């Protein structure tokens, strides 16, 4: 067994942010193991993504370009990956902890009888094993987890690793000859409704979130305004989502999304442990709350006690001026 593989995600022929992060994490692992780094790229019209992968420093690209693979469906892609892994025997396989990466790696673990560790925030190498650090038990504890034998399947949390940087390197991808039949794929796509604007929370560098303290759907306007001026995404606590003020895909926390932005601004969020589970790996946390005893202030790096409807517009104006927007 040798070699570190990364699974590449892409949309509209552009590489996904998580895959740039996966390449940089995988590069470190490959260097520490003294093994080559290979990217796996499935899709349709993805030659540009292969070129981008070489530019970001992978040593080889194995690609499959087929209309059946245009949109990721685990039943179409995973059997091909299973065969490839059996044939070429990589030591480590890394993917993003995304809907795609999660489905694919769980399938690979089951079919290859291999160990899988999900949602890594840090990787280290010990001998031929990768030691994965990841939050467990609602983020209250850290696990230092390793796969004891054979292939090591690992998914990585978005924004936990820096994006790989351009190297100027070029290369020639190996394109597999695949003969896929649409009739063999059980999942038939009927419709796709894109998210209505805004940044994907998992990829957002800055998140401004509102909670019960914003008081109602219209209370999210100043939260959104600050997110907009900072080029960030808008999040919400469970209380705000359950009240119907914002849609579920904005929810940060235990039964919502887990995020790791550089900056997380919690507005009118008390900071229940369920919310903390979704955002405690943010690098800098700001809490704005009228209750000085709110638990969020125990987690926050910066706190402002006061009325968010006065503080948020003032902050938005301050940043608008400084950022020249």
């Amino acid at each position, binding site marked *: 067994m040798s070699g570190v593989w990364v699974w590449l995600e892409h949309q509209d022929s552009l590489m996904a942010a998580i895959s740039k992060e996966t390449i940089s994490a995988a590069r470190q692992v490959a260097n520490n193991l003294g093994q080559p780094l290979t990217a796996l790229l499935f899709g349709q019209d993805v030659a540009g993504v292969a070129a981008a992968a070489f530019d970001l420093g992978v040593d080889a690209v194995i690609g499959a370009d087929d209309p059946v693979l245009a949109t990721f469906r*685990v*039943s179409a892609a995973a059997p091909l990956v299973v065969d490839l892994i059996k044939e070429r025997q990589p030591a480590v396989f890394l993917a993003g902890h995304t809907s795609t990466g*999660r*489905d694919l790696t*769980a*399938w690979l*673990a*089951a079919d290859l*009888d291999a160990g*899988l560790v*999900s949602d890594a925030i840090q990787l280290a190498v010990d001998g031929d094993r990768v030691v994965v650090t990841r939050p*467990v*038990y609602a983020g*209250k*504890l*850290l*696990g*230092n*987890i*390793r*796969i*004891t034998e*054979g292939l090591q399947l690992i998914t990585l949390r978005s924004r936990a690793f820096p994006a790989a940087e351009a190297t100027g390197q070029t290369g020639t991808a190996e394109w597999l000859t695949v003969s896929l039949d649409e009739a063999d794929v*059980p*999942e*038939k*796509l*009927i419709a*796709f*409704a*894109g*998210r209505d604007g805004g940044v994907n929370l*998992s*990829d957002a560098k*800055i998140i401004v979130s509102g909670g019960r303290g914003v008081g109602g759907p219209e209370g999210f306007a100043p939260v959104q305004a600050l997110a907009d001026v900072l080029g960030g995404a808008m999040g919400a606590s469970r209380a705000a989502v359950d009240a119907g003020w914002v849609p*579920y895909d904005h*929810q940060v926390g*235990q*039964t919502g999304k887990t995020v790791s932005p*550089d*900056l997380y601004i919690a507005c009118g969020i008390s900071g229940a*442990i*369920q919310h903390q*589970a979704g955002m405690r790996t943010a*690098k*800098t946390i700001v*809490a704005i709350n009228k209750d000085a005893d709110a638990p969020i*202030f*125990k*987690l*926050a790096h*910066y*706190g*402002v*006690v*006061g009325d968010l409807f006065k*503080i948020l517009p*003032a*902050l938005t104006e301050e940043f608008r001026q*400084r950022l020249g927007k």
Partner: protein
Amino acid sequence: MNVVVCLKQTPSTTAVFKVNDGVVSWDDPGGKPQVLNPWDEYSVEEAIRVTEKHGGKEAIALTMGDEGAVESLRTALAMGCSQAVLISDPAFAGSDTLGTARVLAAAIQQQPEVQLVIFGKQAIDGDTGQVPVQVARKLGWTPLTFVTEISAISDGAITVTRLLENGKQTVTTPLPVVISVVKEINEPRYPSFMGIRKANKATIPTLTAADLAVNGGTGAAASKVDWSNISTLPVREGNVFMIEGATVEEQARLLADKLFEEKVI
């Protein structure tokens, strides 16, 4: 058609954890130290709704765990599941997700006329979310994850909407399938008084290793994932920097200064 819902009993979210030599234990002085995994409230509710709306007959709750895990099954019965089965054997203790999936798949195969298995997205202790797809593979059924809506079950097929990073995908797949659901799918009902009484009186059968034809390794010996090194988080309490000022404009300026210094803007 019958529906199986697979549950996990987990530490409650407010549980206080202790770590001794890398091994985790917990207690919840203020409440119940163990609860039905919060994500599984949605899968139980959806299993019941499938019997109510889509012509499912029985909603069967399964869990693998120690004897205490029977409490999560009683919650499922109280909400409205019609049957519950505990899968418990010392031989299964310490299974990794794949070992767990093998046991669950064997137990599902024993239930009659099952075409649909429902899981919550993940469990709040390990938070891996690996088991639904692994069970699907062990059964040879199609996995459909992160489901926000079951819009139809008819003519041997199911139509669902899935929540992905960039939007919502609607997919039709022939049955049988294994799905995992997210919170958006429904609002779980509270157990009724009658439901709780019925659940408390119910006899819940236990399946052991001897009752199941598990294909492949289970238990700690077969686990390929070593979870033995758990540590507590570095403490960060008590060092919040409070931004104070005479006016909100001054506070805004001070906070902006700090955030530019931190290079997060």
